[in-house]
């Protein structure tokens, strides 16, 4: 059992999985260790799922570089992995003169960041594009390249591709201690010891804690919570673009956006918290979010709210990504990936792979051809499994029994009910389980026991 890996990635969030994928595809023997019962148990389980151009990122930052590289690679590989793209564009809407005056500065910054197709919209142009938008909007800045993607299927596809290239993913494997001995790290996990030459810390909200297992952390994670309110599907017809606010010095503000699953959502808030595990919502904030959404898009008052959620950003005291290699300690840190990690993940993986090559050994020049592992599509605007028939179990999201069974099989079966929901959307619709929750959990239990 003394299997020795080249690389052990700690954490199966979107960042860890993208890194695992890239290194496995580069021919390294890689393993990823995840504390949760399934992948995406941390920051990556609740976000806005926007694919960002980086138009408002700090100029020349590593974050910007990773976002833009990640964006490009996503577009490059998404068809092979059957990953969706909802081409929405974004509009930064100005609701008063002060905000309007700021649009020019935002436009300049976008151009400086290489996002050259931005364009100011007059109130009339805005109205033509978004007829349902409140008449109080005074104009906006169009960012054509901002889009919406599937926050769960993308990392799942990265995980599958990594496995196809020989990587191993071990879940329920919290790393609790690390010891460096004879050129390699020996990691103590809930599933036994794992030995690897290089460790990559991609532990997200626990980045500082995992760092402390090996070295003195140079940062501290200060989680920042974001709450969301999701409206039912008819709402998606009311808005085309992602509606961004003009940021103030204090806050980036909340976004109104269509989801890849055919809903419309508003969020996230930005609230400091000490909590790393449970992202709670609170009624007062939810009420405010809902009211703000209706204020911007008055027709929303006739649409029901179907879901509430909150996510935790792995923020640190610095806004920049913390990605560094420690040559002496055989350690790479990829932490503080705060609010752009879904977009940036593939770019971060490129960067980490370059750090590896620079510090820990050349990567093979000639690689075997990529093995593609397409995932089932969950996006509302593309072809979904139910369209081919089968028995629908979840009537709100039109999830079939076949999909649920498939999600409990294969090299990375759903580890828990929450993971099953992320893989299929079952019970995530408007009835929130009135009709199907019981069928879905029964089908899950049956498939799980049938499999083992």
């Amino acid at each position, binding site marked *: 059992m003394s299997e020795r890996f080249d690389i052990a990635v700690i954490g199966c969030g979107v960042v860890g999985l993208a890194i695992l994928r890239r290194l496995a595809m580069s021919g390294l023997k890689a393993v990823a260790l995840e504390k949760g019962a399934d992948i995406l148990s941390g920051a990556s389980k609740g976000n806005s799922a926007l694919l960002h151009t980086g138009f408002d990122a700090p100029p020349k930052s590593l974050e910007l570089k990773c976002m833009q590289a990640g964006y490009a690679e996503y577009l490059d590989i998404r068809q092979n992995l059957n990953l969706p793209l909802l081409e929405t564009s974004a509009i930064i809407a100005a609701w008063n003169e002060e905000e309007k005056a700021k649009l020019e500065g935002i436009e300049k910054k976008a151009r400086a960041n290489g996002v050259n197709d931005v364009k100011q919209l007059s109130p009339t142009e805005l109205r033509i594009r978004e007829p349902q938008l409140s008449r109080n909007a005074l104009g906006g800045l169009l960012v054509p390249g901002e889009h919406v993607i599937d926050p769960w299927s993308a990392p799942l596809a990265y995980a599958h591709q990594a496995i196809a290239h020989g990587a191993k993913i071990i879940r329920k494997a919290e790393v609790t201690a690390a010891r460096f001995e004879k050129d390699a790290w020996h990691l103590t996990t809930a599933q036994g010891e794992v030995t690897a030459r290089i460790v990559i810390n991609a532990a997200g909200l626990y980045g500082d804690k995992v760092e402390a297992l090996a070295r003195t952390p140079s940062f501290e994670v200060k989680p920042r919570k974001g709450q969301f309110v999701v409206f039912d599907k008819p709402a998606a017809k009311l808005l085309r673009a992602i509606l961004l606010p003009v940021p103030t010095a204090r806050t980036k503000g909340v976004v109104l956006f269509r989801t890849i699953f055919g809903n419309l959502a508003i969020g996230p808030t930005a609230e400091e918290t000490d909590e790393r595990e*449970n992202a709670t919502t609170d009624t007062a904030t939810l009420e405010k979010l809902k009211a703000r959404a209706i204020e911007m898009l008055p027709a929303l008052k006739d649409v029901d709210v179907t879901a509430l959620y909150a996510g935790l950003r792995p923020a640190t005291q610095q806004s920049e990504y913390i990605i560094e290699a420690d040559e002496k300690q055989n350690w790479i840190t990829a932490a503080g990936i705060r609010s752009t990690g879904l977009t940036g993940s593939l770019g971060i993986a490129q960067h980490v792979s370059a750090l590896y090559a620079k510090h820990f050994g050349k990567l093979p020049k000639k690689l075997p051809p990529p093995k593609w592992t397409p995932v089932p599509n969950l996006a509302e605007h593309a072809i979904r499994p139910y369209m081919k028939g089968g028995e629908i179990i979840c009537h709100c999201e039109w999830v079939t029994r076949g999909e649920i069974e498939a999600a409990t099989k294969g090299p990375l079966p759903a580890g828990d009910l929450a993971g099953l929901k992320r893989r299929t959307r079952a019970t995530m619709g408007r009835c929130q389980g009135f009709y199907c*929750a019981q069928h879905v959990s029964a089908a899950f239990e049956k498939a799980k026991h049938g499999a083992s």
Partner: protein
Amino acid sequence: MEHHDVVIIGGGPAGLTLACELRERGRKDVVVLEREAQAGGIPRHCGHGGFGLYNSWRTHKGPTFAKLLREPAREIDLRTATTVLNFTMSGNLRLHSAKGIQEMSAGTLVLATGTREASRAARLIGGNKLPGVMNTGELQQRVYLNHEKPFSRPVIIGSEWVSFSSLLTCRHAGMRVQAMITEEASLDAPGIFGLGARLVFGAPVLRKAKLRAILGHKKVEAVEVEQGGTTKQIACDGVIISGKFRSESALYADGFIEREGWAPKVTEQFKTSRPNVLAVGNVLGHLERAGTCMLQARELAKVMTA
């Protein structure tokens, strides 16, 4: 494309009764589309008694009642495991079944899709996402169909008469209800449970109280309730979010027909804003007893064959 004289969406008490009555009145080409594997609607999983034909005093348990409904329905063209997904621009139905997606057109279309409870999300109840929070529908299916006991000390939110159905379900499963929490000033339920009750089946009733948050780590540990400007916590291990029924509006919420609140806007003759579209039963927006929905369906059959 398949065409039928009358297409009824929903095989609950309202839809099945309408189909049978229409058949008796000589309308032969009637189809009922039901998305569940078995017709019968809500009563299928209401394991407690209280279902009567046309509000008669003879009552049955829900599942028995559903069976009684299905018997005469053997004569009709009932298609189960068939979901109406939505409508096309021209008003045709898009159906899903095991075979895939198919279109159908209807001379007259009847919506009999029932109601569902406002979810936790719709009520903006905050706190943690935890197992052990469910509505009456899920509770009943777990208790009566699966013989599960999802928790043992729940609180019940709501006081409409269906909340008492939750109470009965809890009693059946041997749970001890910790409190019944209602925003109303008085209990909205009939008979012995009526006005001013302080205890129901031994459980305290908190009136003019609003559930703000559901708390706990891996499972429900307490709820936070606001009452008269102060908040307090009540320990419990489950939350039943009941009542606040609203029409199952998924099919028409996008503007297919005009609405009044969540329900279709209808005339006294059950007509919606679209000439060939009618609506009957609980989809009209009130949670009525099954017998009342069936009376409505009979009424509609008369109108349709007059």
